[in-house]
């Protein structure tokens, strides 16, 4: 519980710092990230070596933005279980073998590794986007690509109230556990009343928030402030990385590099 709130705060804090990556235009970062993800997942199951150069993007952004390595790795590890759970069946079902350095391994393991690499790359790219942009600037970027106002405002409100309701729930759970020693979770009799009480409190809060919004002239329109213009540096960032992604997709650099070296030796 507190862990989840802590996570949101961490990325929020990181995104508020001033540095080269954080100061880039949010829309540019969003587009670069999406393009990166498309390129990563477009690789076939057996392409591993050609997938590797794409790791340059997260590594460079990560270093430029000076993010904490531990937190990023934790986030990636968190996302792994489902992917591993599905991917682990590849070695089970694909027994065709290939020879590699004199060892014989099944193709299933190779495809499994390919999935794992993709998981690391995609999750890292998503985390880097939030940790260098922050929710409110992402919201502004979404507005720029014409995502409806209703959705963006609602998204920002949800983000804002997670910590408020999270703390409210934490207090309720504490009160519950103090009177239910030794219980691990919430028992059946209290499912509805505990969750329902939180729900009704949230409901009342929503009404007060609505009143607060109306009192300050809200009439269904969400007016975000002026957005910074996209500068030459931003465009350069987008163009540079896009070129890199395309090159990485078209040519298998590691294979080429490897052939060069193994040819020499």
């Amino acid at each position, binding site marked *: 519980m507190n862990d989840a709130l802590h996570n949101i*705060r961490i990325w*929020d804090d990181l995104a*508020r710092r001033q540095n080269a990556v954080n100061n880039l235009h949010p829309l540019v970062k969003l587009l670069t990230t999406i393009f990166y993800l498309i390129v990563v997942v477009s690789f076939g199951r057996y392409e591993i070596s050609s997938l590797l150069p794409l790791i340059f993007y997260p590594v460079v952004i990560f270093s430029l933005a000076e993010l904490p390595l531990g937190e990023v790795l934790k986030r990636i590890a968190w996302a792994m279980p489902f992917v591993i759970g599905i991917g682990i069946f590849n070695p089970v079902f694909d027994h065709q073998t290939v020879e590699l350095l004199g060892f014989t391994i099944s193709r299933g393991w190779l495809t499994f590794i390919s999935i794992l690499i993709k998981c690391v790359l995609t999750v890292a790219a998503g985390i880097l986007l939030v940790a260098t942009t*922050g*929710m*409110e600037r992402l*919201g502004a970027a979404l507005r720029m690509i014409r995502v409806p106002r209703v959705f963006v405002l609602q998204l*920002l*409100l949800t*983000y*804002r*109230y997670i*910590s*408020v309701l999270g703390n409210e729930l934490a207090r309720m759970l504490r009160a519950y556990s103090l009177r239910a020693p030794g219980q691990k979770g919430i028992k059946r009799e209290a499912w509805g009343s505990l969750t329902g009480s939180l729900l009704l409190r949230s409901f009342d*809060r929503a009404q*007060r*928030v609505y*009143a*607060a*919004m*109306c*009192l*300050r*002239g*809200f*009439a269904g*329109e969400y*007016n*975000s*402030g*002026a957005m910074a213009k996209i500068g030459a540096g931003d465009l350069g960032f987008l163009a540079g990385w896009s070129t890199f992604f395309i090159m990485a997709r078209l040519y298998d650099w590691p294979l080429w590099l490897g052939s060069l070296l193994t040819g020499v030796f």
Partner: protein
Amino acid sequence: MSHHKVEVSNLHFSYPDGHQAIRGMSFTIFHGESVGVIGANGAGKSTLLMLLMGILFPDSGEILVGDTRLTKKTLPMIRQRLGMVFQDPDDQLFMTTVGDDVAFGPRNYQLDEAEVESRVIEALTQVGIPHLKDRAPFKLSGGEKRAAAIATVLSMRPDILIMDEPTSFLDPQSRRRVMGLLKSFEHTKIITSHDLDMVLETCRRVIVIKDGLVAADGPAGEILKNQPLLDGCGLEMPLSLQSCPNCGASKYEVE
């Protein structure tokens, strides 16, 4: 200067479940006055505030702000002149940064971005937190949240400030700071609270509410000294007016 006046006459309101919350209230608040509205839980304070802000509409009776009657039609105009600070700042700070929150009102009134920016800085400076502009609301302390909530209202340049329990949930020093802020505002002020010492310090006039009716209306010093009246309304004398428990001497003389 009559346009900063708030006039309530013969106000009635009952909730859909039949509960009669306001049963015929009348009073007038003049320009520049600071008025404390006090009463026990359930006396009708919150309902009164909601009626004043046009969140609820009365069954009968009327509310005049300046010379304008509060109706659905005049609501946008009137809300621009009344600024309400909620009891729980988390209800009022609904945007992701303090700056965006303070800008929310001005932006809704379609001011240009330069004007919005200058109002945000002005309001935050007025409450002493210009450095918190880019902070997320969940990173603020209780006192900072309260100040930010007040700034969200000040940026709309209201004539009249309405505050619901401005000192609740605050530590003594933050409470002091908020009280200092309240005293520094020259707006017409309407403050509801159970913190009667704060009311005594910040308000000249007090209206006591009991069971949806005005039970008393007069100078703060007189009413807050009137023990039988306060007892009858579920309140008690401010500590600063109570006699010393040891020697019986009154510490604070009020005329």
